[in-house]
């Protein structure tokens, strides 16, 4: 045992430089897995762990209509029966237009208005900018507490007055942290006012998108109360949710995301493992003579393997620990780069258990990937000291090797299943990885064999470079696989980004409105259209809209008690804006049934095809809508597909004329003209002065918000992709190390035969240039394929080929490979040939 430890120590002392890449491969892999997992865990903790604070209560009852006296009495009855409610409050939220009261200030902005009453909040903190807790007196007599961004948007300050709807509010303070957090997609800045002030502002009267909420804080587990409330409120539009369910949902989502990200980390670690495998092979190759000497001196194969295994374990362990430090640096980088996109109170520290997991994974991957090369130590015969033989015996396949290979694959599967948290996902990961690697490997095989057959190169350097790609023991295919995979991930993401960004590009969608007006009353619509036409010369297109909620399908009520249905509630339980018109819109096509052309006495509705799938309805089925408490049953006449790329408005449900004309309705209006920002502001301001109840969406603002989200997403994926590229580079360096002695020998011979240093340098450049080019072609080719299929089949967006990304990607990959390859092999050019030839 002493021998094993002392030899291990000495070996590490002298070979650490050669094993540096081993160390780096593991560190990078562990670093990425720990960083990704910690990031998502910290995010979960910052956003999702306290669903109670997110809900600001234990139970929430919400409705888009006023709570009716019957509903209130039902609720009161259940509450008093169970007697666990400690406190309650009510709030109203909606979006509304805000503008400074000062007529000289032309700014307007859409805000998310929230009317509250004391005690607020029931759960969680509400802190002002100076750190003091929120005081309800700030809202008394038309006071408002706002998010800081609004002051910048409207160019107003604390103490100034702003107009929202028909009322004026004085800004009394800026809040720092809003109860329930500020995560998620929000169109406007949050403004808090007194709940009673909502009515004075006239917003509840006209606005269609009001959400009323009753919150309860309970002294005990609210599950039973929630169950009874749901039972009592069955058939109404009131929704009941508890923080426990929210927590459950958020928890599940985050765990899933965490596990998927961990798999991305595992992918990088497995790539690191390929690097480890290469380094271990090179290491054993270089140690052949030392192993033979040790065997000659009496050390058995098992003892020698133990020495190298211990060495691998030590390096794996230290590399993994270094990886944890890398992860911590990565998180600090994330804080520096993405802080604005992430929750305020998020921690950027690596978790203890996550770090331990990372170290464990790192060591496991070190062993799994070096086991097979190390096994070769057994086959090294001491007789090679007398007569140097080729490595036939080293390459021979024996049962032990097959067995160990099988154990390694099973161990890898175990790690994948562990990291994915699911057997199926783990298996898919490994099979997917093997399939991708197989396809890339085949592509590499094909390209190199084509290159070999071409033989059209006039230049000696190029011919030699092509030969080098085929030299015995070459690493060409492994390098192409690893670097190609890195290029593939990064280029696929960039190609997708380009297509996504194009999708939101104004210039391509001629029918995307620039301004969108809603909540226009019937009495206001003509005047509004006239003013818009006078100002910008375009007649706005108007559409009547009616708020409706689905209550029954084929006579059966939607049962939100069912979990599956409840999970889809966001899509099917919400209130829809529906319209009625005699004609199909330009961007619509009927995919089933027929569009109405003649009059009919039966109420009919046209359903968007994806919604039809979700609701499991087809032509001929009936859907019952709840429209302001009145039930309207309509027969599904047809299913429509909406081309969102060419859309002006997109209605999920369109009724046949003659059904909804007398229902309570408002109008929406759209204009297409691209109006300069100042004119747009002026028009909005003027319209709000005349019609304070309407809401205006400036589509440019929304597109900018979406683009920001897309860009952050792309940046995040590119960040992960860069880890993959780095692993590819490490594998490249490891592979170069593996074939270096051969290159030195070849160069010595070429020098003896009269090759100049410049010729050798040209061969080096040409070899890595070719290698990089082929890796780039493979990566870019498959990236184009992936981005096309994702755009076409998953995102359903139009796809265009981006020559800049593809050509740039190939060029960048070639450059990286040339740089890394030449830097790692440059010293070879300066070796004296005699010493090399003698030592062979």
């Amino acid at each position: 045992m002493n021998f094993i430890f002392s030899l291990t120590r000495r070996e590490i002392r002298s070979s650490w430089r050669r094993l540096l890449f081993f160390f780096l491969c593991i560190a990078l892999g562990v670093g990425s897995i720990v960083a990704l997992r910690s990031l998502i865990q910290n995010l979960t903790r910052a956003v999702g762990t306290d669903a109670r604070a997110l809900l600001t209560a234990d139970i929430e009852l919400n409705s888009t209509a006023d709570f009716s006296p019957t509903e209130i009495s039902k609720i009161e009855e259940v509450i008093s029966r169970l007697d666990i409610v400690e406190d309650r409050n009510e709030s109203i939220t909606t979006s509304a237009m805000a503008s400074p009261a000062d007529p000289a200030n032309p700014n307007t902005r859409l805000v998310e208005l929230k009317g509250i009453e004391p005690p607020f909040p029931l759960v969680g903190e509400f802190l002002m900018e100076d750190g003091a807790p929120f005081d309800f007196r700030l809202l008394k007599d038309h006071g408002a507490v706002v998010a800081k961004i609004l002051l910048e948007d409207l160019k107003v300050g604390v103490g100034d007055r702003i107009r929202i709807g028909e009322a004026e509010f004085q800004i009394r303070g800026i809040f720092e942290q809003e109860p329930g957090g500020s995560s998620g997609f929000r169109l406007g800045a949050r403004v808090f006012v007194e709940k009673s002030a909502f009515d004075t502002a006239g917003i509840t009267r006209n606005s269609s998108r009001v959400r009323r909420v009753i919150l309860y804080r309970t002294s005990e587990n609210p599950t039973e109360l929630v169950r009874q409330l749901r039972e009592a409120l069955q058939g109404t539009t009131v929704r009941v949710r508890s923080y426990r369910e929210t927590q459950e949902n958020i928890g599940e989502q985050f765990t899933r995301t965490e596990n998927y990200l961990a798999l991305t980390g595992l992918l990088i670690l497995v790539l690191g493992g390929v690097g480890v495998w290469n380094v271990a092979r090179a290491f054993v190759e270089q140690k052949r003579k030392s192993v033979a000497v040790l065997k000659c001196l009496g050390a058995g194969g098992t003892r020698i393997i133990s020495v190298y295994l211990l060495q691998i374990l030590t390096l794996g362990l230290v590399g993994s620990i270094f990886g944890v430090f890398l992860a911590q640096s990565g998180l600090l980088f994330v804080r520096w780069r993405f802080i604005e996109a992430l929750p305020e109170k998020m921690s950027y520290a690596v978790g203890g258990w996550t770090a331990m997991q990372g170290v464990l994974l790192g060591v496991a991957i070190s062993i799994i990937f070096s086991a097979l090369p190390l096994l070769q130590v057994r086959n090294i015969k001491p007789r090679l000291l007398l007569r140097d033989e080729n490595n036939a015996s080293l390459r021979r396949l024996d049962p032990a090797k097959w067995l160990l290979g099988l154990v390694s694959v099973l161990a890898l599967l175990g790690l994948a299943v562990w990291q994915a948290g699911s057997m199926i996902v783990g298996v898919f990961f490994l099979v997917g990885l093997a399939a991708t690697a197989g396809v890339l490997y085949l592509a590499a095989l094909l390209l190199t064999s084509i290159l070999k057959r071409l033989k059209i190169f006039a230049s000696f350097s190029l011919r030699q470079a092509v030969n080098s790609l085929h030299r015995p023991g070459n690493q060409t295919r492994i390098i192409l696989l690893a670097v190609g995979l890195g290029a593939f991930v990064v280029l696929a993401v960039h190609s997708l980004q380009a297509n996504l960004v194009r999708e939101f590009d104004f210039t391509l969608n001629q029918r995307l409105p620039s301004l969108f007006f809603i909540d226009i009353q019937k009495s206001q619509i003509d005047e509004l259209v006239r003013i818009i036409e006078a100002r910008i010369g375009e007649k706005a297109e108007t559409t009547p809209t009616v708020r409706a909620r689905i209550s029954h399908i084929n006579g059966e009520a939607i049962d939100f008690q069912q979990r599956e249905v409840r999970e889809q509630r966001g899509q099917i339980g919400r209130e829809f804006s529906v319209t009625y018109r005699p004609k199909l819109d330009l961007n619509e096509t009927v995919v089933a049934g027929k569009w109405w052309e003649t009059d009919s006495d039966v109420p009919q509705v046209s359903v968007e095809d994806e919604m039809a799938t979700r609701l499991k309805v087809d032509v001929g089925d009936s859907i019952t809508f709840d429209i302001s408490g009145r039930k309207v049953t309509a027969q599904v006449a047809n299913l429509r597909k909406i081309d969102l790329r060419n859309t002006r408005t997109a209605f999920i449900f369109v009724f046949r004329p003659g059904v909804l004309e007398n229902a309570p309705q408002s109008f929406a209006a759209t204009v297409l003209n691209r109006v300069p920002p100042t004119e747009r502001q002026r028009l909005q301001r003027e319209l709000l002065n005349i019609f304070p109840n309407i809401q205006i969406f400036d589509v440019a603002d929304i597109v900018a918000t979406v683009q920001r989200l897309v860009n952050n997403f792309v940046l995040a994926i590119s960040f992960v992709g860069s880890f993959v590229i780095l692993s590819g580079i490490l594998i490249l360096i490891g592979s170069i190390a593996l074939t270096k002695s051969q290159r030195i020998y070849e160069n010595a011979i070429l020098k003896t035969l009269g090759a100049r240093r410049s010729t050798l340098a040209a061969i080096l450049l040409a070899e890595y240039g070719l290698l990089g080019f082929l890796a780039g072609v493979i990566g870019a080719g498959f990236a184009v394929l992936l981005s096309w299929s994702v755009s076409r089949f998953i995102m359903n967006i139009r796809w265009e080929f981006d020559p800049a990304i593809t050509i740039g990607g190939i060029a960048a990959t070639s450059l990286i490979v040339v740089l890394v390859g030449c830097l790692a092999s440059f010293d070879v050019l300066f070796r004296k040939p005699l010493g090399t030839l003698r030592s062979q």
Partner: protein
Amino acid sequence: MISLQNLTKTVRSGTEDLTILDDVTFEIPDGQFVALTGASGSGKSTLLGLIAGLDSPSSGTITIDGEEVTAMSEDDLAGLRSEKIGFVFQSFHLIPSLTAFENILIPMEIRGIRDAADRAEMLLADVGLVNRGHHYPTELSGGEQQRVAIARAFANQPRILLADEPTGNLDSRNGKHILELMTAMHSARSVTLVLVTHDGELASQAQRSIVLRDGLVITDEMNLVNGTGK
């Protein structure tokens, strides 16, 4: 006592079998200094390697002190070498990642000897490299490397020393010094010394001379000056 019985070694060369050793039989009594000579390719090094258990014969047996080497497993052979055999190579074969001192230490550590460091120091002194122990092989001259190799070969006080052209890579002055060192150690410790060489002058210093040609023993005689009789 080393005993070789009908030892044959054939290897595959392309499509043909090539006989390197052909029915070799002889014995080497304990403490004898034997020179194995012959032209290049005569089978000298192969024979030496077979005695050390570095390779296995195609047929025939080798026994050392009554133990049949040719029937041993790899690990048993390693044990045998650790205990009884020291080996010196033409190209030294020191472990490049270890210092001279550590190279000498290694065989003793493999065998599990406790006070190995003191003995390694002593052996370094024996070969005249007291101040060079901390140097790596690449920092030593050829002669110095071979001296380290000899010290390493003697580390476990082997009863048999096998040397494969130990002076082949050295100039004549260093070669002479190495030979003196080996013969001195041979007489001081009375080990069996089998020396492969094609240097006639070197061979003449041995007690017995065996000449190989094309794998066959063509001469096996005692040296009149040094020999004491077979």
